[in-house]
């Protein structure tokens, strides 16, 4: 997946992946359920190659993915920031 279209939100996408892993492992549970749903939905959309603009299209393919990520970030930003604070303060 090219990182360019995601700009500065790339670390937040990676944080979503780590949060899901920590949640699945039972290490981290302090995330509201609706926020979790938003995060999972964003990841599912990003992983799916057949979305509004097919990912294979040069240059444009990931524009919709970046938009979806930006929308999901607006709703999950606080939870992701809390998670990253937890990451640096534990283990």
């Amino acid at each position, binding site marked *: 997946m090219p990182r360019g279209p995601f700009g500065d939100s*790339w670390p937040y996408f990676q944080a979503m992946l780590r949060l899901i892993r920590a949640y699945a492992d039972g290490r981290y549970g302090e995330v509201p359920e609706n926020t979790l749903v938003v995060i999972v939905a964003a990841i599912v959309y990003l992983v799916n190659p057949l979305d509004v603009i097919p990912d294979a299209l040069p240059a444009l393919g990931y524009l919709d993915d970046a938009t979806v990520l930006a929308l999901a970030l607006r709703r999950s930003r606080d939870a992701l*920031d809390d998670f990253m*604070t937890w*990451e*640096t303060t534990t*283990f």
Partner: protein
Amino acid sequence: MKPKRTAVTKSNRAFADALVRARAYAKDPKALRELFQEAVRKATSIPKAPFKDLWGYFQTMLRLIRAYYRGDYRNVPFTSLVMIVGAIIDVLNPWDLIPDWVPTLGFLDDATVLAFAVQKTREALDNFTTWETAPPVRPAR
């Protein structure tokens, strides 16, 4: 990649000083560990708003430093490491150009320095987060 003396380093003496200190820190895992712990302590009291989405990169820098001094992850060019350490020192340093206690402006200045450092080290930081989520090379905790 050599950190170029661009507008930010020239206009911000504090950041230039931070980079000089960073060079010594980067060679000493113990110093990095102390810097990491100080940064984590201060991170909770730093307002996130001025940093916008760069906050994610700041947190990434902290995790990279931790993985580095622990020896879990060393796949980062020395110049990038110095730039990252310099940015953390600068964000922690209360004596930069616009003092942090000047409401909002203080952290705006830090945000500028952080933006500059991210621009220079983005690839190293992105490689690190990719490593974090890639399970096969992750050592057991």
